[in-house]
């Protein structure tokens, strides 16, 4: 288990950095997780985090890459609904990294 310290609390994470308790998510947590991965969250990142959280709410799944690209395209327009665009924002692996920052479970249908 890992921990991450926020201003008023400490949040538990699993060994891969995903939240143990999904209700612990906050924007401050997303910031802190992003810093650990050397990502500075811009509006473009927040848009994607919003899309992926909405996806989880609607379907009960953390999306794999293809459905994530599709959801982003539907909600933010075709220019952003491209894997290249997501790779620039989340270079490690967009589906996994965005799910982690958004406080969702690790996607199980990933490659």
């Amino acid at each position: 288990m890992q921990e991450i310290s926020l201003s008023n609390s400490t949040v538990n994470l699993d060994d891969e950095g995903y939240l143990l308790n999904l209700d612990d998510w906050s924007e401050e947590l997303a910031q802190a997780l992003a810093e650990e991965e050397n990502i500075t969250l811009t509006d473009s990142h927040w848009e994607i985090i919003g899309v992926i959280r909405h996806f989880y709410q609607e379907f009960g799944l953390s999306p794999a890459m293809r459905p994530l690209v599709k959801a982003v395209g539907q909600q933010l327009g075709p220019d952003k609904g491209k894997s290249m665009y997501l790779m620039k924002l989340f270079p490690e692996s967009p589906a996994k990294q965005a799910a982690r920052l958004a406080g969702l479970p690790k996607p199980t249908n990933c490659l």
Partner: protein
Amino acid sequence: MSQKSILLILSQAPYGTPNAREALDIALTSAAFDQTVSILFSGDATWLLQAEQNPADIEQKSVAQVCAALPMYDIDQLFVVTDDAEQRGVEYQQSPASPLGSDALSAFIAKHDVVLRF
């Protein structure tokens, strides 16, 4: 990798056993690997298409929600055996699955390369 036409026949009810959900996970994964998967809802699996499922009180995830996600995974070849749904009184009319009569079943099944049935 090569392409094969994969048909997944679901026959079990959405709740009570994990079968339906585990079968859908095969579809989601195959789609993530860029494979074309068709899904046929037959028998008690026609209940997956029932409107207004709310499994919150039995503390299970909604299988209907997963079905709703299928088009996002580009799984849009969905079919329902209408005789089975109607025999059970399933309210499937709003679902995106195309109707298939049981007399057309054997020909439909025969045209796929790989058929998994759960």
